């Protein structure tokens, strides 16, 4: 049983130096009853997962809720876990499933929100500021990033999910395909279409 204190404990292994197999081993140890292994998995993956989900939904509050939900599903599914793929593939499959369901369930709300936007660039009001290195970050860069966000948000959900896994999570075609339940060739095709769409949408910035 996980108690609140355990999740906040910083473990020495909680860095990205662990190998991929170590995640699966942590999961198996957690399955065997070592609750602290779940804490390690949360510590290792919570931030990248949060960023993935945030880029999908572009809402910080929702992203955090869905991140927690994804880890809750991992916790509750521990008895059924089998090492068939990398742990991250399984984790991102859960996260993609939750996120895509959320987007579908709230599609109408987002449409009505976008109609209410008062900004000239149509930027989502709940967007967070993005990290801008250097002193020259200003309106122009913010506008460019807003366009990137809108272009990504405009992709169909599965294409968006595939691009984000590929571009920001460093997942390869096989892993993305496993997460989205697609063949490798279908994943390549999906990514190709997504990147071509982005290139067309953002051509004036390229």
């Amino acid at each position, binding site marked *: 049983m996980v108690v609140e204190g355990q999740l906040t404990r910083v473990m020495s292994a909680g860095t990205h130096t662990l190998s991929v197999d170590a995640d699966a081993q942590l999961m198996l140890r957690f399955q065997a009853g070592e609750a602290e292994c779940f804490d390690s998995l949360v510590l290792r993956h919570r931030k990248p997962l*949060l*960023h993935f989900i945030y*880029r999908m939904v572009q809402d910080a509050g929702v992203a955090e809720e869905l991140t927690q*939900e994804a880890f809750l599903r991992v*916790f509750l599914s521990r008895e059924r876990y089998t090492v068939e793929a990398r742990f991250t593939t399984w984790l991102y499959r859960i996260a993609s499933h939750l996120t895509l369901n959320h987007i579908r369930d709230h599609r109408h709300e987002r449409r009505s929100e976008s109609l209410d936007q008062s900004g000239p660039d149509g930027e989502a009001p709940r967007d*967070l500021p993005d990290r801008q290195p250097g002193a020259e970050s200003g309106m122009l860069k913010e506008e460019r*990033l807003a366009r990137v966000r809108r272009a990504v948000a405009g992709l169909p959900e599965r294409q968006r999910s595939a691009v984000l896994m590929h571009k920001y999570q460093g997942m390869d075609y096989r892993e993305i395909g496993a997460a989205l339940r697609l063949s490798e060739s279908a994943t390549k095709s999906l990514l190709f279409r997504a*990147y071509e769409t982005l290139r067309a949408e953002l051509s004036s910035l390229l």
Partner: protein
Amino acid sequence: MKCNTVRQALWENVGGEAEAQPAIRRHVAGCAACAEVAAQQARLHQLLDSWQPELELSPEFDLALARRIRVAEDRGTGWLAAARRWLAAPVGWNASMSLASIGLLGMLGVAVLMRPAQDARPVGGPATAQAGTVVRDLQVLDRDRDLIENFDLLSQETAPEPATRSEENQ
């Protein structure tokens, strides 16, 4: 090599490794359109790289997750969840099946025992049951008529009593 094939191959290798492949490199070198696409792809990746959300986990993240887990576990500690877990346990599968069979048989037995009481009908089926209802109604009417007649007789017999009582009161 077709342009579309080259462009797909270019996308497959974000770091430009595909361009190192001789066939791809030769095509890009000789095709201005594909060379422009390759350059745009590289710039697009740079543009996408610049999107790094300044997003940190809230301080309540761990607490909220722990709370969710506790709620989910509490929800799963009822007798129904316990029964489900027990039935799902691989070790107890045979025992579970045996007990489930016994339970099913027990329920069937109860159902069989209760059936005559629920379906109790006079011999002859529904038509007889309807006739029986009418007969019962007639019997009730007869009994009521007898009661009314007897009541009248009783009234007649007891009629002088009030006078007697008044005399006694006096």
